[in-house]
């Protein structure tokens, strides 16, 4: 009896976590394994490669479509994130600290816009962008990306800023700090983690976008990674793209893994901030 119970307890302690980790990492390990399979062995129908090769990574880095897509993705996502977080920080500061009519409405608006189906915006943007020359440009993607990065940042930041003890700024001023010092030494360190978290989440969304990416670009001038992956054909037309696509997929997953490893706690806090509050 006691043996059985301790076995079940141990299963609960170790079995659960092991299952979760297996579930989350299994497809990642699969795509990693696929990326190491040589082109001739891609159809071995096994989980692991028979022979390892780095050939696919060489192919990917020698494909201009992919390298330019990587550059496009990084800069477009970063710029959209930066602009959103700057505008959202100012707005969230006002929402957290000032009393004014309409602030609840602004938060509801942000929530509604975050739930907006991107496809509904694509047609008009396609039409307008083509007539004013923003089609297939960085700006042509940065603007629609703000339709989700901005509400997301406002949402996350207002939740974070509500928790900041703003009285400390005045306390520092009473202790003889100038208002600039009080802001820089007291408020900035308190607000920075929230701003940073909002930026990571916004970046994930921008990095992930596919609908705008395939609809509003046509060449490697602005085409980001997800769209490039969908149109990737390999080095020659006779090559099966599966191996090369897997290598490219692994490369674009690395930044995500690094961010998650470094900022795990903050991302969890940011995801749940404001979502569930009593």
């Amino acid at each position, binding site marked *: 009896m006691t043996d059985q119970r301790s076995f079940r307890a141990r299963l609960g302690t170790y079995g659960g976590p092991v299952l979760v980790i297996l579930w989350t990492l299994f497809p990642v390990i699969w795509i990693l394994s696929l990326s190491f399979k040589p082109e001739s062995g891609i159809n071995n129908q096994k989980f692991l490669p028979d022979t390892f090769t780095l050939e696919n990574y060489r192919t990917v880095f020698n494909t201009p479509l992919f390298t330019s897509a990587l550059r496009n993705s990084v800069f477009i996502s970063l710029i959209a994130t930066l602009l959103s977080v700057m505008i959202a920080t100012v707005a969230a500061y006002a929402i957290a600290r000032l009393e004014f009519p309409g602030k609840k409405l602004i938060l509801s608006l942000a929530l509604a816009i975050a739930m907006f189906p991107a496809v509904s915006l694509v047609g008009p943007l396609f039409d307008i962008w083509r007539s004013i020359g923003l089609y297939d440009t960085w700006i042509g993607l940065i603007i629609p990306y703000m339709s989700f990065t901005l509400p997301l940042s406002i949402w996350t930041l207002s939740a974070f800023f509500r928790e900041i003890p703003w009285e400390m700024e005045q306390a520092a001023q009473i202790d003889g700090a100038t208002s600039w010092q009080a802001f820089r030494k007291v408020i900035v360190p308190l607000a920075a983690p929230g701003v940073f978290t909002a930026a990571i989440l916004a970046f994930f969304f921008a990095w992930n976008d596919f609908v705008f990416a395939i609809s509003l670009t046509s060449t490697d001038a602005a085409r980001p990674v997800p769209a490039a992956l969908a149109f990737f054909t390999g080095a020659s037309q006779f090559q*099966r793209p599966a191996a090369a696509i897997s290598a490219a997929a692994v490369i674009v997953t690395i930044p995500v893994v690094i961010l998650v490893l470094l900022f795990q706690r903050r991302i969890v806090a940011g995801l749940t901030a404001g979502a569930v509050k009593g």
Partner: protein
Amino acid sequence: MTTTAAPAVGVPVTDRTRNEKRLGWKLTAPAVIVMLAVTAYPMMNALYLSLFSYRLTDPAAREFVGLRNYGVVLSDGLWWQTVFTTVIITVITVAVELVIGFAFAMVMHRVIFGRKVVRTSILIPYGIITVVSAFAWKYAFALDSGFINNWFGLGDFAWFGGRWSSIAVICLSEIWKTTPFMSLLLLAGLAQVPEVLQEAAKVDGATWRQRLTRVTLPNMKAAIMVAVLFRTLDAYRLFDNVFIMTAGAQRTETVSFLAYRQMISRTALGLGSAVAVLLFLSVVAIAALFIKGFKVDLSSVRGR
């Protein structure tokens, strides 16, 4: 500071509150203007375009047709088929995610060993590009590169050859990618169930199942409803997985995909915009149903 109480009725509004009001509007104005400019303006434009017979390849033939595009869409069996596919995928994914997500939340809530590893690994599907997830699952099930058939002795079963097996793989990829979001929201809800109640129920001799259904679940109803609402709205606009895995073949087309195909591939902007407007209206209807019908308390979402 914010502690200043709102002016009581009859008391004249002071300069201070007036200034605070003005500053609040000034600071939030850029955000509101940008949000409306990037969504409301294109949406209005879509509404306008949907009233025209308009193909980008033949702009001269643009002609006002009133609501005829809506009539064309709503009387077409293809539209109802895509709605049906979208609803089925939404219901399956959200239901499965709720169960798995809750199990994962329980694991994360109780875990002692490897807490950090578990929480880090669960964020990886969340952060991964949906297109990458779609490729990973597509290759796993594909006839040539896949290992699934080999592992389970399914021979040469063509997963992407039939409607329901294609939908199953699409659902699997969607579930894998979005369960972490669901489980983290549920974990936050789980953390709010008072430990005292659990202890009291335990002392009173409640079984594990009784504690789950009588104490835990009722106390996190708000969190569950919010998580389900968010995920339902997200699942309803499903696009990436379908595009990569089947490109709409085998009757797996979703509403988002139909709108995209009409507008961008066929450049039928008028008809496509009508589909896009209908998609938007369905999303609004789902949100309204949750908030009014199921009484999802969005004030808990809004913070205090």
